[in-house]
């Protein structure tokens, strides 16, 4: 009798505890999502300086710098709604502190994908549109008549097949001549992410090869190294940019 009584008590206790815990959990409705920005060339992880990679136009190229903005993040739910964060994140491949961007206070729910802008939208891409930090000032796009910031600086060298000597390339993207040129990125997760007051890590990879091959084969020789005011080059890069990112992993912390 005593046994039955004590097991009844423990069951009651366990039940209360579960009830208590679930109630508590319900109170912390929101979670965190860390977005990690990594870089690759094809299947290899990007190495700056002196690593040489082939590209679709046939050149070997080497990357010296990679800096860019992403902004206007949306976490999409399976019911068609989305959680939005309209901030900009600056990534410099040389600076580990810029590797991740945290979406705070993400509501619980089932998320099926992520979208964002590579670059800045019309509202942010004006002179003084971002906080007046030395980093943002260094990204300014000062061409007379244009506004805002470089979206991306991808700089390096390539083996010019026509001349047989090394030349420099600078994929500097931004808005010019009234064309906004930012790239809209949409990524589906392989499996839905069920966020429940916890913290998730989403790893993204930018494949630099993609800037140079699809849908346009971007030939450094065909465009001069100065493309900031060249809308043909900007348009090609904008279209190539749509599939430079992929999701490499979505994991609960």
């Amino acid at each position, binding site marked *: 009798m005593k046994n039955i009584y004590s097991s009844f008590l423990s069951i009651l206790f366990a039940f209360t505890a579960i009830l208590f815990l679930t109630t508590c959990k319900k109170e912390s409705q929101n979670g965190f999502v860390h977005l990690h920005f990594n870089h690759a060339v094809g299947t290899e992880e990007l190495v700056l300086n002196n690593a040489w990679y082939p590209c679709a136009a046939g050149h070997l190229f080497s990357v010296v710098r990679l800096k860019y903005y992403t902004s206007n993040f949306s976490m999409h739910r399976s019911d068609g709604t989305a959680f939005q964060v309209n901030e900009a994140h600056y990534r410099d491949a040389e600076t580990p502190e810029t590797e991740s961007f945290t979406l705070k206070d993400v509501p619980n729910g089932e998320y099926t994908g992520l979208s964002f802008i590579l670059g800045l939208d019309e509202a942010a891409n004006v002179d003084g549109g971002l906080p007046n930090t030395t980093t943002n000032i260094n990204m300014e796009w000062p061409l007379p008549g244009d506004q805002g910031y470089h979206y991306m600086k991808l700089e390096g060298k390539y083996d010019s097949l026509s001349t047989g000597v090394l*030349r*420099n390339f600078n994929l500097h993207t931004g808005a010019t001549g009234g064309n906004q040129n930012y790239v809209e990125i949409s990524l589906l997760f392989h499996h839905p992410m069920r966020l429940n007051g916890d913290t998730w890590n989403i790893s993204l990879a930018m494949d630099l090869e993609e800037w140079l091959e699809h849908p346009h084969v971007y030939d450094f020789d065909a465009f001069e190294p100065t493309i900031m005011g060249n809308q043909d080059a900007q348009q090609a890069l904008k279209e190539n940019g749509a599939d430079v990112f992929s999701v490499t992993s979505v994991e609960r912390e």
Partner: protein
Amino acid sequence: MKPALFYLIFFGILSGLLGCKKDHVENVPPGQDWTYDPTPFEIKAPASFPILNIPVGNPTTVEGVKLGRMLYYDPVLHSDSLRACASCHSQERSFTSDPPVLPHVNLAWNTSFLWNGKVEGALEDIMLFEVKEFFKTDLEKLQNHQDYPKLFYEAFGARTITHELCAKALSQFQRTLISGKSKYDRVLEGTNWVFLTDEELNGFDIFFTEKGDCFHCHGGILFTDNSFHNNALDASPEPARSAITSNPADVGKFKSPTLRNIELTGPYMHDGRYETLEEVVDFYSEGLKTSETVDPLMKSLHLGGKHLTTQEKSDLIAFLKSLTDTAFIADTALASPFH
């Protein structure tokens, strides 16, 4: 009053006073009249300048800036007592000299210092390096000086002078070395009747487009990106920044100096090889030399340079001269306090 009583009272008061005085002297060694009650100093930078980060441990005060200014101009800081900071950083040359040292202009916004970036961090870090390692400041000399112990107490509330406190005071003064009143700044601010001439305006276009493409390294309101580049100066470049980082990719890379007051800061390049701005512009126009680590931003490297016309070169120089801040080099608050 009876004389005996008078003397008793007199000596009583006297001994009381003496006693008090003696106690006071014993409790507070030299400097009984010292007070530590620093007044906050407001750093006035143009609105267009970037957000200024001042380390929490070294707030700017009137007393700190005053002390820093004295130390900057006083050879007592150097172990040889012959040279002061100002010996190589003279105000009339926008705080540089010949041979060229990086000018002390708007350094408050820098995060790396010296041509090869040997010191990184805040002004306090570079000033500590200068005091401790470069000047090898003799702290005894400062501690026994007739003025400095009091000034250090007033600035920091400290009785013992340290290299760190010297660095803090110098950093506070350095944060006031702000140049932002050139003709170009007045044009940006929309000052009435101040405008760029046609030549300066054309130079501005060359500077801020890929025509001249100066702005990627010397751009923004500070006219420097605070970064390091091999600007194609030599076919066999010096180790430069690679001597610090041991990274072969950093061979030939030197810090981009600010172009503010560039008219005043010649000779040019890290080794002062060019006497005039004309020579500098000729180099970027026709004189580039290929080496392995030349920066990709030298977009016309394969052509040897930008190939500007004579008119374009002189227009570019006209624009550069609009960055000269005569108020800065005449500012008495930044001049030597010793006369």
